[in-house]
């Protein structure tokens, strides 16, 4: 008869979730270096020793857009160019640089590659400047300079020596243009320069960057470097990069060996090249070698496809759980006010909205402390929405106990009122609440699987809120009293529980949790006066589907509805998926009006 009793099934479920959570957390920690969003320290990377003081540190944008691991490029600028200098005899470095001014894109690519293979003291800076679009060519003679904008003029430097070369009007110069493909080449070239860095990590990153765009020059450089490489990880990465290169350029045996070597590698690059191979070699090829190659490639493609499907499902599952966690957050406050008190609070959505606005206001109050503001917004939103909830209960709901339909209408009035209030105070425009670094970007587990950090955090947060509520309900005297009142109001009153005060507190608790949900939502969507409306029906559905008065039911129903929605979505599109879920819920409630986990017993009969 205990509405909040932990059932065996529910216990197992939470255990699974905890295990999953720990697994996520550890993997996330391991994968931390892989975060695409720049780690906080990256912005403060010091210019390397070689940069002349008047040269700006090579900027972040030198990072090729698709490189997952280029965060530390600058810190690893080559200190070893001198070692390679002796090999450069016979290469016309200055002439090659000068040719950039008139070169077309294929030529520019070749030049970049050649420069990386025959570096001199300032090659790294030159490439950085190139990637940064700071190379210009004089219109009159096509001579190339490194330029720094200064008002309407350029401060010029010599591209070879990086000596200052005077100042001239920008009008006399054309930029040496780059495009995405070229910038990737530049990135690869920059990486190549770093191949001989002291730090194994840097070399590893360099190899990985290079492998994105490996041409013959770079491959040769890599092979040359391999002989002197000592670090196992770097060796491994070089082999992989060369193998991938072989897939394109090697002969049949090299290709076969490469396929063999790369089995178990699920990256997009390998996949694309294998697919390409399948396209290039006709299915009914007469050549036995080619046929063997094709079969090997096909096998790998099939294997990667299989893993992709698996990870796709995992990803869908995650999106479902993520949506579910939001539904749980939104619904759990309602589960308290509706489930425990039997009160329909149509203003629940607006309490969520108030929480979201609290997060917005906190960030306005603490400019520059996005993360801190967000953390502080959680208790603040609890208090704001909780107080508003208590106000609603004292002023309206308490007069309407036992008249649920009237309560529904009155609280709907409150919701209109609150919406308009927010419109008056904050304007009807949507506000956006900024995300702190630890909530942005992707958390990458492997080549095929990455999760968005904000959703992961919210999933964990929602579970934490749920756990806290369960604790409150089971371990505190407030929870005990709430459970007592929900089971038998008259008896509880007879036992000396001040039901009026308790009602207000319970309502405040449910409302406060709605506020917390609002803070979480502010990280996923824009904050506007209509935010709450879009969640109210969903929240009710979650509570009713789970079984009124049962917090565990709310958890299970929220998560399963989220997962259900996300698994339908790919087939039907988002809107139709939502409609289907709504219809499913309507039909379900009609079959089992008391939800998934109904309360049993005589006390439940009358309700």
């Amino acid at each position: 008869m205990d509405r909040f009793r932990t059932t065996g099934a529910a216990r197992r479920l939470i255990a699974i979730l905890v295990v999953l959570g720990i697994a996520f957390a550890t993997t996330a920690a391991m994968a931390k270096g892989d975060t695409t969003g720049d780690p906080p320290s990256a912005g403060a990377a010091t210019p390397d020793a070689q940069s002349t003081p008047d040269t700006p540190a090579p900027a972040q944008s030198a990072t090729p857009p698709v490189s997952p691991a280029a965060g530390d490029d600058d810190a690893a600028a080559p200190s070893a160019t001198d070692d390679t200098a002796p090999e450069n005899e016979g290469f016309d470095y200055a002439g090659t640089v000068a040719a950039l001014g008139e070169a077309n894109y294929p030529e520019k690519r070749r030049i970049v590659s050649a420069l990386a293979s025959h570096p001199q003291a300032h090659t790294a800076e030159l490439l950085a400047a190139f990637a940064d679009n700071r190379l210009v060519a004089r219109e009159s003679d096509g001579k190339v300079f490194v330029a720094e904008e200064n008002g309407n003029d350029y401060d010029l430097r010599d591209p070879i020596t990086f000596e200052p070369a005077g100042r001239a009007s920008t009008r006399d110069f054309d930029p040496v243009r780059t495009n995405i493909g070229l910038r990737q080449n530049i990135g690869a070239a920059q990486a190549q320069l770093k191949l001989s860095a002291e730090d194994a990590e840097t070399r590893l990153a360099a190899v990985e960057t290079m492998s994105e765009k490996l041409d013959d020059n770079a491959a040769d450089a890599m092979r040359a470097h391999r002989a002197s490489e000592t670090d196992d990880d770097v060796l491994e990465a070089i082999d992989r990069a060369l193998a991938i290169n072989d897939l394109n350029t090697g002969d049949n045996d090299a290709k076969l060996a490469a396929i063999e070597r790369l089995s178990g590698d699920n990256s997009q690059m390998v996949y694309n090249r294998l697919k390409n191979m399948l396209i290039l070699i006709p299915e009914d090829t007469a050549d036995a070698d080619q046929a063997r190659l094709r079969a090997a490639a096909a096998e790998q493609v099939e294997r990667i496809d299989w893993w992709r499907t698996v990870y796709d499902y995992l990803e869908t599952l995650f999106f479902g759980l993520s949506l579910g966690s939001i539904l749980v957050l939104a619904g759990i406050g309602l589960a308290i006010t509706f489930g425990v008190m039997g009160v329909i609070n149509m203003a629940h959505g607006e309490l969520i909205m108030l929480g979201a606005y609290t997060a917005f206001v906190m960030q306005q109050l603490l400019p520059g402390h996005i993360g801190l503001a967000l953390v502080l917004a959680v208790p603040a939103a609890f208090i704001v929405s909780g107080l508003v909830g208590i106000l609603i209960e004292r002023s309206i709901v308490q007069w309407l106990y036992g008249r649920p339909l009237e309560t529904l209408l009155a609280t709907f009035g409150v919701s209109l009122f609150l919406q308009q209030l927010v419109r008056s105070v904050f304007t009807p425009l949507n506000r956006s609440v900024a995300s702190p670094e630890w909530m942005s970007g992707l958390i990458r587990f492997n080549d095929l699987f990455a999760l968005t950090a904000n959703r992961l955090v919210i999933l964990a947060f929602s579970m934490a809120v749920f756990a806290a509520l369960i604790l409150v309900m089971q371990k505190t005297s407030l929870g005990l009293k709430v459970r007592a009142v929900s089971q038998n109001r008259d008896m509880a009153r007879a036992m000396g529980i001040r039901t009026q005060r308790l009602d207000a507190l319970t309502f405040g608790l449910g409302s406060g949790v709605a506020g917390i949900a609002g803070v979480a939502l502010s990280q996923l969507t824009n904050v506007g006066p209509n935010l709450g409306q879009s969640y109210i029906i969903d929240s009710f559905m979650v509570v009713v589907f789970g079984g009124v008065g049962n917090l565990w039911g709310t958890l299970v129903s929220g998560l399963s509805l989220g997962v259900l929605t996300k698994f339908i979505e790919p087939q039907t599109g988002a809107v139709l998926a939502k409609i289907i879920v709504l219809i499913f819920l309507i039909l379900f409630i009609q079959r089992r009006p008391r939800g998934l986990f109904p309360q049993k017993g005589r006390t439940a009969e009358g309700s």
Partner: protein
Amino acid sequence: MTRTHANHGPVLTRMLGDTGSLIFVVVLIALTVAIPLCNLVAEPGSALHVSNFTVALIGKYLTYALLAVALDLIWGYCGILSLGHTAFFGLGGYAMGMYLMRQIGDRGVYGNPVLPDFMVFLNWDTLPWYWHGMDIFAVAMAMVVFVPGLLALVFGWLAFRSRVTGVYFAIITQAMTYALMLAFFRNEMGFGGNNGLTDFKDILGYSLSSDGTRVALFVASGVGLLIGFLIARFIVTSRAGRVLEAIRDAESRTRFTGYRVELYKVWIFTISAMLAGVAGALYVPQVGIINPSEFSPIASIEAVVWVAVGGRGTLYGAALGAGVVNFAKTWLTGAFPEIWPYALGALFVAVTLFLPKGIVGLVSQLRRQIRRKEPS
């Protein structure tokens, strides 16, 4: 605390035996006759003249009033609170909209004789099956009652036989209208998506922009409301009406007395949905557009508030409430647009807390007090 028993005698006496209903019917008939006269006969500028704008506005209120009567029939008399009644209103409206759309013929922007503009725009080359026959007025009008009725029948049958009641029912009806709204927003549904159905030209061959048609539509709304009201009155004053009230007050007792409660509920819910559908069909040609926002859950709840404001369980109170609230809305959104949502919110609260019987209840209370004072 006594009530005269009116189960015998002529049906009309039974239906109009109570003063409020009689006054309502008289006023409604007067309005339906007088407003067109004042519009068409009285010279513009004279004190009696009623502008075209006012005619259209009051015509719209009349259709709202019919929706309110439909709601009161189930809520006031059978205790079924539907937060999704605009679903039926909207479906009726769409059925009418489809007819009007087909009447445009080749006068649309794209000049396609069969396909409405939005279908041409979506590169559709054939008419979806459910649009066939909607160019025939009789078929369209049958759909106006049939489609909402069928939805209500199926929905109600599923809900009531499982004994889904009270707030649960309210919530799933809300979900129903929400799902419909989402569905109609989809272009693939073939109802014009976001924009809905609009740019209507004429109805039964009469131009919708002519004064005569407008007045005719007004009269149709008045007559529609009158007929809907009389049907509702007939039901609630019959023995079946008393069964409905019995269900409202003591559902379980009604069952033990041998009445199949779920059948009564499905029946009255279906009739109410049909009335709402008719209201929607009368509404659309007067406002010239129907789009998915008509299905919005908020619109449904607003309609419930009309009933609450007027006074539930009286039918004429519901109609009165629809008129009063919408008049206030028109006036306030014109004069102080910021204030309207506050006013509406406050109205919800005030009516439930202080006026549980609505305006009608307030009036009868005042009359009682006056009567008590008179002797002294």
